[in-house]
């Protein structure tokens, strides 16, 4: 680009008062900071993240410390969330459970961000592999999510890593599909055609011109995905096919507490509430992101 044109564009940008023109990301952030739903969701999610990060500080005792003399203590000032059948502090177990939920959620989101984007971008951009990749994708999506997750953990094993892999296998096709549908539209845009005509390579076109514009729906998807991953992991461990005790997860604390629920309802009520708050926070956050980043997506669920 000749220098005089470049200067001209810069001057134009400076003349423009609307910040959106200069920096769309900053403008989106501005709108998010005024979005009540997003902010409420962010606060709820942040509470859980803080519980997870500061678990060692918050927990009054190690989560597996047994104290039979204190079993089934109801919530009180001395024992904020009460204790379970082994007298273990429920507060300790719930905050360490939060740690695991956040870890698994973040890992599944990371797997999806990498592989979902890669698979979706390649399928959407290279028509020759599109059909084949999407058929495999459709087949994986044909299995109801929990069923596939259960089956994969059944063959891999119940460790945390295996649960993460299982959830990655279940959800990556869904993410890939979303990325692919954006890429297919973007590939036909005139500015992309112009880049092709200017001799840009595939890699450069994908990375510079297509993927940055496919990010908005992906970010929205990933925030909901975090919620699904946390929820599905809790369901798996509630069913006894996820991470096994004594590792505390919200799901297996509730499964253990189930047989005592008439006498000690707090054992299921508190981890369940933590789980519901996490999912609620992430759903609100995702709704807010969708409103701001991609209003066209509002119709889809």
């Amino acid at each position: 680009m000749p220098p005089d044109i470049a200067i001209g564009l810069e001057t134009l940008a400076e003349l423009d008062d609307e910040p959106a023109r200069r920096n769309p990301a900053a403008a989106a952030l501005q709108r998010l900071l005024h979005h009540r739903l997003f902010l409420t969701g962010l606060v709820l999610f942040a509470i859980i993240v803080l519980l997870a990060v500061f678990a060692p500080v918050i927990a009054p005792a190690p989560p597996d410390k047994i104290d039979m003399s204190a079993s089934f203590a109801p919530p009180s000032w001395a024992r904020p969330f009460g204790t379970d059948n082994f007298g273990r502090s429920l507060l300790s177990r719930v905050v360490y459970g939060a740690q695991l939920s956040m870890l698994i959620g973040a890992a599944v989101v990371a797997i999806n961000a990498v592989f979902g984007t890669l698979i979706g971008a390649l399928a959407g951009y290279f028509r020759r592999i599109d059909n084949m990749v999407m058929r495999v994708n459709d087949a994986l999506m044909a299995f109801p999510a929990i069923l596939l997750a259960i089956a994969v953990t059944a063959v891999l094993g119940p460790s945390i890593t295996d649960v993460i892999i299982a959830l990655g296998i279940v959800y990556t096709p869904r993410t890939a599909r979303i990325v692919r549908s954006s890429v297919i539209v973007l590939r036909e845009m005139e500015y992309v055609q112009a880049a092709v005509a200017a001799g840009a390579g595939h890699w450069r076109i994908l990375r510079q011109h297509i993927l940055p514009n496919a990010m908005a729906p992906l970010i929205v998807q990933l925030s909901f995905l975090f919620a699904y991953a946390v929820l599905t992991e809790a369901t798996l461990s509630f069913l006894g096919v996820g991470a096994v005790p004594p590792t505390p997860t919200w799901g297996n604390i509730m499964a253990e507490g189930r047989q005592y629920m008439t006498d000690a309802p707090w054992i299921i009520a508190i981890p369940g509430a933590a789980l519901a708050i996490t999912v609620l926070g992430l759903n609100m956050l995702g709704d807010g992101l969708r409103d701001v980043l991609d209003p066209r997506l509002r119709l889809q669920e």
Partner: protein
Amino acid sequence: MIGATLSRIAGAIPILILVSLITFGLIHMIPGDPAAVIAGLSATPDQIAHIRHDLGLDEPLLSQMYHWYDNLFHGNLGTSLLLGDPVLQVVGVRLPVTIGLSAYALVITLVLGLASGVLAALRQNTWVDQAAMVFAMFGISVPNFYLGLLMILLFAVELGWLPTGGYVAFTDDPIGWLTTMTLPAISLALLLTGLLARITRSTMLEVLRQDYIRTARAKGLPRHKVVVKHALANALIPIVTVIGIIVSLLMSGAVVTETLFSLPGIGQLLTQAVLNRDYPMVQGAMLIVTALMVGVNIAVDILYAFLDPRVRYDAA
């Protein structure tokens, strides 16, 4: 119409082939020796060899695959290691429980979801709209097994109105079926009701903005007629497409709901099969349920084409 239907069915064939391949491959994903894993830690080498032979795992992979498809086309999905009965037979006994539960939950979802969605759209930005959307947000956020547990505590344990679990066949005792299925169906329906209410609201808002709605009102049609005949009829078209997703979510939800309420359906069967490493059962149940899901999706697509004559089928 017939051509479109046939091409939609043909399009499902590659998916079904891949689904059966993935199901076949499941057992081979087991790290190490699947036969040893299935036999358990205390098994003798003899027992392991026996299981390996029974499952055909001692044959070459291609011949195993041949047998898998050969049996599949003859309606033979193997024998449950735990129960000793043919997988197909066991699934056949359990399936009506799951279908009954899902149908009950689907009815609740459609009634509550459509009603609250339409109402929220008609009263946009009023307290009715806000209450409906808060309800929907809680619906999609509260895990169904948590809601189920809380409902058991309240309605079964505290108030004693409904049983905590158990199952009575509809054909034996319809009233008994209704009392045992109500709590499970509500806990299963909540998520989907929330989902459907949100979709219905946004679709209705979109439709209500259209010119032909204004025209219908302007020519003097009463409001309720416009809402039902003009708005809802058109809003239903995009809503039908999510019914396929809803049915798939119902199946996922049924797995945990059945376990929670001790209902002897497919979900409970599958969970038990996984915990007992009954892999033929896992494979068979997965395959049948997923094939059913594919079938439901085809039916939904055909219904969609039927409702919306504008839909044209490409070769897809």
